[in-house]
């Protein structure tokens, strides 16, 4: 009896041990693609299709945690250790410079990505020092949501300049339980996205050449921007002071509860405004953000790109899959099934895509004018400098001018390192 038990245990152990090896036989190449999850299942089915049509290659989807910072930490850890098991990484638009400078991702061959086929903002986000390091996969940009019904009742058209915008708020918002305009003003990455949209809208920029060559002009543009933003908060009919603690969902919730006339948020908020439980179903419109007189509106780009690891052992096969997962056909499927905003121009004209997402046409108008946050390996530090000083100025802790000067000085210091 005892012998039999021992033999059984040994046999089972041996079986487990042997089943561990041999799952990768010498002929099949495994390509690992690390990215955040796609709850729609579109990516998984694309990968399945690819595997079926490419014998000898097996692509595995390594699902990363949803939190962007957690993904960043994980990738930095793997790549600093020269991990070779992951071939393709899905990167946030603001990581390109960092990963390129560290040598973690390689410039892509020209055949893989033709810039003219893509939206210009995403292409700029994958470029570092003139070379392209990733393929834009899906995109995101700041958008103005407005209450069509309230503007119509007041006989107003969608405001395009800040003056008209404030006037619209003052006309419509007459009681204290309604806000004019909610956005993201907490001290976090989202504040940088919001701030830049105001800065670009008054004609300013944080372009390194501009900052280093003309610091006084850059500072005065930032001062003007901060005054504009503070003015919105100071005006009772426009932005509540509590916006200084708002992130995306705080602002979005107010809008879908019907308590704000305007909202600045990302495209995802559209789905939330139109779903059950929202008090503004069918009443929401999309437009570019306002700009200063005689200027242009720009939106901050978000989104994700796919890059090739410098330590991949199967470059050829990984690049082939990269072409596939960013092809017209793949982007179309992800747009239809997952509502992922495509980065290829042609996908916005696809009838099937537009039928599944009619609002994509409105978003496309906004996407034509998108710009990137400062592209530098030091971006996290730059972001923190902007966040802290903008937040302090909006809180009234320092003057707009002092904040502007600090931003220009510190950014110039970081960018020239």
């Amino acid at each position, binding site marked *: 009896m005892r012998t039999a038990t021992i033999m059984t245990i040994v046999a089972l152990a041996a079986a487990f041990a042997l089943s561990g090896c041999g799952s990768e036989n010498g002929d099949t190449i495994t390509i690992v693609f690390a990215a955040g999850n796609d709850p729609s299942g579109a990516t998984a089915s694309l990968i399945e299709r690819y595997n079926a049509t490419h014998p000898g290659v097996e692509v595995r989807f390594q699902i990363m945690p949803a939190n962007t*910072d957690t993904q960043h*930490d994980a990738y*930095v850890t793997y790549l*600093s250790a020269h991990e070779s098991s992951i071939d393709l990484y899905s990167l946030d638009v603001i990581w390109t410079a*960092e990963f390129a*400078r*560290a*040598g973690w991702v390689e410039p892509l061959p020209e055949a893989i990505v033709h810039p003219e086929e893509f939206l210009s903002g995403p292409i700029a986000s994958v470029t570092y020092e003139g070379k392209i390091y990733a393929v834009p996969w899906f995109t995101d940009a700041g958008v103005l949501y407005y209450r069509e019904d309230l503007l119509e009742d007041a006989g107003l058209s969608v405001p395009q300049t800040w003056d008209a915008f404030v006037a619209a708020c003052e006309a419509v918002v007459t009681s204290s339980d309604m806000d004019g305009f909610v956005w993201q003003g*907490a*001290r*976090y990455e989202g504040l940088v996205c919001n701030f830049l949209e105001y800065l670009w809208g008054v004609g300013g920029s944080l372009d390194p050449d501009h900052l280093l060559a003309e610091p006084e002009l850059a500072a005065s543009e930032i001062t003007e921007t901060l005054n504009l933003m503070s003015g919105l908060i100071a005006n009772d009919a426009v932005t509540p*002071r*509590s916006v*200084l*603690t708002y992130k995306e969902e705080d602002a979005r919730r107010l809008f879908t509860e019907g308590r704000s006339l305007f909202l600045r948020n990302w495209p995802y908020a559209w789905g939330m405004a139109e779903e059950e439980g929202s008090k503004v179903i069918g009443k929401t419109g999309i437009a570019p953000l306002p700009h200063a007189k005689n200027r242009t509106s720009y939106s901050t780009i978000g989104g994700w790109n796919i890059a090739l690891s410098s330590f991949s052992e199967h470059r050829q096969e990984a690049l082939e899959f990269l072409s596939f997962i960013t092809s017209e056909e793949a982007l179309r499927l992800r747009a239809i099934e997952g509502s992922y905003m495509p980065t290829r121009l042609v996908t916005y004209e696809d009838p099937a895509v537009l039928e599944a997402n009619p609002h994509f046409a409105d978003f496309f108008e906004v996407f034509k004018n998108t710009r990137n946050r400062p592209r530098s*390996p*030091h971006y*996290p*530090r730059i972001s*923190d400098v902007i966040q*802290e000083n903008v*937040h302090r100025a909006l*809180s*009234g*802790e320092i003057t707009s001018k002092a904040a502007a000067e600090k931003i220009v000085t510190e950014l110039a210091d970081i960018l020239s390192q």
Partner: protein
Amino acid sequence: MNRRQERRLAAWLITPSLAFVVLVGAFPVVSQFVLSLTRYDLKFPDERGFVGFGNFARLAGDTVFWLDLWQTVVFTVSSVGLELAIGLLAALLLNRILRGRMFMNATMILPWALPTVVAATMWSLIFNDKIGLLNSVLIRLGIVETPILWLGPGVAMISVILADVWKTTPFVTVILLAGLKSIPHHYYEAAQLDGGSRWQIFRSITLPLLKPFIAVALLFRAMDAFRIFDLVWVLTGGASKTETLSVYIYKVLFRYSDFGYGSAITVALFAIVFLMSLVLLRFMKVASEPTQ
């Protein structure tokens, strides 16, 4: 076996555990010191190298460091001060309870038993200006008219201190209660016979005999408060003048991937806390010396 042989055997037997403790304890500290003398930024792997005190020179001129240090000091002094005062009061009250003592003790410990992150999340909901409990109670009672932005500019530090005091006063109370229980009854009886007032008894008997316990509570709380991270991180992320040194270290290490500089700041924090505990230990020693 004679005494000497016994001692030698003891030494040998302790060596493995001691070696383990030294390795696990000392190794990270030493490697942190070494890292602080290097330039080690993960994003610039080709620039890694020894820089001597370069990181510390950078630290000296880093306005964010000094600002965060000041904010940490403000937090530590305020919250530890409040905790000692309230903790002492609570201990004195609890000491007098005869019935329901176990229930009172258990309830009192509850905030301290909660994981900090859970407590912080709970407080961030209470502090919410639109849907939070605090504003709704204050407005209903007519104490304020417009909702206060508790986690916003001007008030955020107060909110963080409030949450911390709520959470860790029980720790002080427990220590001081033990101290109170250790004072022999007959001291009080003698004092009452001699005609001492409550305040005189408190000043001449209770307080001096409690000093060592106060010192212990002070030491532990000061060291912990100086290193606070999770409460601040969850409530404000460091915004509106609540960023403490630990939050800055986290950012430098994990957002900027700058391990050399992050280690230098950590070494600075270590030095400050170490000095602070030396001072407090001295105070403890003085306090526990017999008084007249």
